């Protein structure tokens, strides 16, 4: 499939407004967030060697270090760090599989983990990678779209209550008008992401099924 696509001129958004994977320009990919997946718990952002198509050197590279920096800066704004004098809060992120929008997925996930750890925060951090491909502004690009000739990638993360932007980067060429459209779409998409983050946090506290009261483990 990959080789064939190189020959055709790729239509990133067709006349019905559908993208290559069937989504509309406003739709994010299916998101799954789960807390408590590994028992134990500075923002250290690392990617597994097999998380990307070309094997990545296990040593953190300049890209990893930059992502760690802008992400920890986002957390500095979100966490009430003044309540923890003389203390470091280490947030470790390991990306096991990557397909565009990775730093935002990592940050969104990390925010849920930090809340689950009981660390006081002004707000969750919610984000989306918005961008442009094939002349159209789209949210949550996948790897294909990210490789479009006119691709623009804008990872953005906010504190949802005040809509303060705590992470914002851009790669590509964009007109101011396009930026305003992108910003609008991003804020809308972020609302969906925020709902999913809340659900993931609350899932732990859902009413347990009473039927399993036989001394067995309640899942």
């Amino acid at each position: 499939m990959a080789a064939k696509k190189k020959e055709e001129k790729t239509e990133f958004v067709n006349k019905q407004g559908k993208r290559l994977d069937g989504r509309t320009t406003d739709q994010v990919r299916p998101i799954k967030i789960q807390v408590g997946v590994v028992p134990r718990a500075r923002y250290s952002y690392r990617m597994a060697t097999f998380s990307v198509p070309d094997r990545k050197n296990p040593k953190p590279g300049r890209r990893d270090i930059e992502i760690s920096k802008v992400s920890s800066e986002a957390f500095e704004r979100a966490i009430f760090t003044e309540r923890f004098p003389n203390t470091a809060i280490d947030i470790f992120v390991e990306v096991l599989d990557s397909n565009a929008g990775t730093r935002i997925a990592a940050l969104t996930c990390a925010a849920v983990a930090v809340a689950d750890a009981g660390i006081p925060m002004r707000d969750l951090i919610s984000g989306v990678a918005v961008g442009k491909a094939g002349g159209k502004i789209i949210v949550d690009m996948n790897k294909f779209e990210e490789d479009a000739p006119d691709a623009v990638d804008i990872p953005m993360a906010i504190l949802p209550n005040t809509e303060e932007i705590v992470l914002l980067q851009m790669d590509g060429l964009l007109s101011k008008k396009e930026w305003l459209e992108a910003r609008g779409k991003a804020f809308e998409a972020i609302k969906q992401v925020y709902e999913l983050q809340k659900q993931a946090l609350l899932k732990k506290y859902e009413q347990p099924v009473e039927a399993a009261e036989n001394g067995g483990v309640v899942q």
Partner: protein
Amino acid sequence: MSSLVSWDFRTDKVLQAIREGKRLDARAFDQYRKINIVKNISENADGSARVKIGETDVIVGVKMITSTPFPDSPDAGTLNVGVELLPIASPTFEAGPPDKESIELARVVDRGIRESKCLDFKEWSIEEGTLCWTAFVDIYALNHDGNLFDAAALASIVSLLETKMPKLEDKKIVKGEYKGKIKLSRKPLLCTFAKIANSVVADPSLPEEKAQSARFSVAVTEDDYLTAFQKGGLGSFTASEIDSAIDIALKNTKEIRKQI
């Protein structure tokens, strides 16, 4: 992660239980915890797996890369095993380059696979002297609850069995296209034992590992060959303890292989 015995509050209890012929989790001395295997957990890897032994949790991803053969084996491909003991896996693991614990683990897993001759490296030669395949097996520990060795080795073998060979065009990898899977002529599995007081137990849990005076791992194949030994730790084993461990390994792996 320190190789010195780090005293755990359970250590005394483990020692006492062992002296009474018992293990804290009521297992028999030669019994494994529950093993859970999930194949192909990564889309970008050429082969991958996640293995849990009890609560010990390990993920492995394999990437097949074209590279230059070693000068002393110009007509063969290579295997490269790496281990990352992630900080989330244990309070004793720190971020940073691989330390001697992760290096030992990587080399033992490598030895078990390589020495079993289950991979025919000559089949991985693309152009003698200039180009060959290298399999990078990268192991990530997600949770350490004892016996990362066996979980890593098992996940590595399962990943290799799932690994697809990338398609080559003009000696360059065509992304996303594959031609069959790599061939393994054997499925070596690693079995690790802990020496605690005067007893030897298979598949040590974390408290048992903390109480152990020494560790012994042996890799065995389905046709009853032994392909790697590794003794670790400051203590020692008697010859007959090693012999029984080998017998137990041969027996246990027959069951474990059924799960692959």
